[in-house]
């Protein structure tokens, strides 16, 4: 067994242990901490599976933003934990759930072990068609050119989720400020970090967007990093969340899918099909769409974490 294989076995065992801890922990706070560690270890697994773009996304969104979201919710729901202990299901239900879960896990494991050999793949098709866009990163090619409709629809799904979150406000608070007002000591450690880190984070985010054309990276990862910087600044109290009724905010939110849709319709009118890029200008078009997408994704992810409107005025 080579060293790499031994390390991968250790990593797999560690992931299982963290998953068991996340399910079995008594306090929700401990479970959320376990979930964040699980997300970061999964990013390592993605790197070992030669999928570095997915590793970046998992670390940023699965580990980072999900952790912030769940930690904030766990802190606000701390009062409900004593009530929940009384509702634990009895042994029969747990045994039944364990049998069902074991069956599902066995079925998935059998599916993994019985995968056909040689494996069917679209990698050669993706490689031969890469000249159509001139980009060096095959995943970006697939996301922005070969399966561009999926990406466009996914942007719309993000917006729908945000509208769903906003619609949970009570009637009198509609259009107000999401989430509680965060106050932090303006001379304290958090405010210091929120002044020092966002410039670095913004540069890193824009770099990942730019480098996503030829190296691992892309719009989603960059958007997640920019959203994290925005959330840091908001949580340190240096700036407040914009109100949900702000027109500029809504324009930024529709900029990403809007640009995507306009380019797609342009392909329909002036080209061969919806979202067909002319080969000569494919790369600038894709980069323009990605830039707009990054801005929208950053703002959408930040607002999804901020939550439903809870304040009428900015107090």
């Amino acid at each position: 067994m080579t060293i790499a294989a031994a390390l991968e076995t250790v990593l797999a065992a560690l992931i299982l242990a963290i998953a068991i801890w996340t399910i079995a922990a008594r306090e929700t706070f401990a479970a959320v901490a376990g979930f964040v560690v699980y997300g970061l270890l999964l990013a390592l697994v993605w790197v070992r599976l030669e999928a570095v773009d997915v590793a970046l996304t998992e670390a940023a969104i699965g580990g980072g933003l999900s952790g912030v979201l769940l930690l904030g919710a766990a802190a606000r729901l701390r009062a409900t934990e004593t009530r929940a202990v009384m509702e634990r299901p009895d042994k029969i239900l747990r045994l039944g759930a364990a049998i069902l879960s074991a069956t599902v896990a066995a079925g998935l494991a059998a599916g993994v072990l019985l995968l056909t050999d040689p494996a069917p793949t679209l990698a050669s098709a993706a490689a031969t068609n890469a000249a159509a866009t001139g980009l060096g990163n095959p995943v970006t090619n697939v996301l922005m050119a070969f399966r561009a409709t999926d990406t466009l629809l996914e942007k719309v799904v993000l917006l729908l989720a945000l509208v769903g979150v906003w619609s949970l406000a009570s009637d009198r608070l509609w259009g107000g400020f999401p989430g509680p007002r965060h106050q932090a000591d303006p001379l304290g450690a958090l405010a210091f970090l929120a002044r020092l880190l966002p410039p670095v984070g913004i540069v890193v985010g824009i770099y990942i967007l730019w480098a996503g054309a030829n190296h691992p990276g892309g719009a989603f990862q960059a958007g997640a990093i920019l959203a994290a910087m925005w959330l840091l600044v908001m949580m340190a109290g240096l700036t407040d969340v914009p109100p949900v009724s702000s027109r500029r905010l809504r324009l930024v939110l529709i900029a990403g899918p809007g640009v995507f849709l306009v380019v797609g319709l342009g392909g329909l009118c002036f080209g061969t099909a919806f979202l067909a890029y002319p080969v000569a200008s494919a790369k600038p078009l894709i980069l323009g769409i990605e830039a707009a997408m990054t801005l929208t994704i950053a703002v959408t992810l930040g607002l999804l974490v901020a939550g439903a409107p809870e304040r009428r005025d900015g107090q």
Partner: protein
Amino acid sequence: MSAATVFGLCSAAAAGLGLYGLIVNPEPLRKIIAFNLLGSGIFIIFGVVARRGAAAALGADPVPQALVITGMVVAFSATALAVALVLRLFQGAGSTTLDADAPASAGTDPTDA
């Protein structure tokens, strides 16, 4: 047994654990965490399929990778919507119990519509 298969088996177990946690844990927030565990395990299985499709000088098949990136962002937005629902339930009903027979206690939002 290659690295991809080891990770595939591990994530199948993680998906099973997530399903168990989803059914057994009474708190909605723990259910959301378990659901995310289940989803991440399924994504790794996608990654195993992608890794086995390595060809044409690429380390892994890029199409499942793109699908997984899309799936992760959608799963996060679903999680955010679910967390917002749980918080709203807590505001409106005073507790996050999903038990239909539980007595309703006063919520913290007096002008709740």
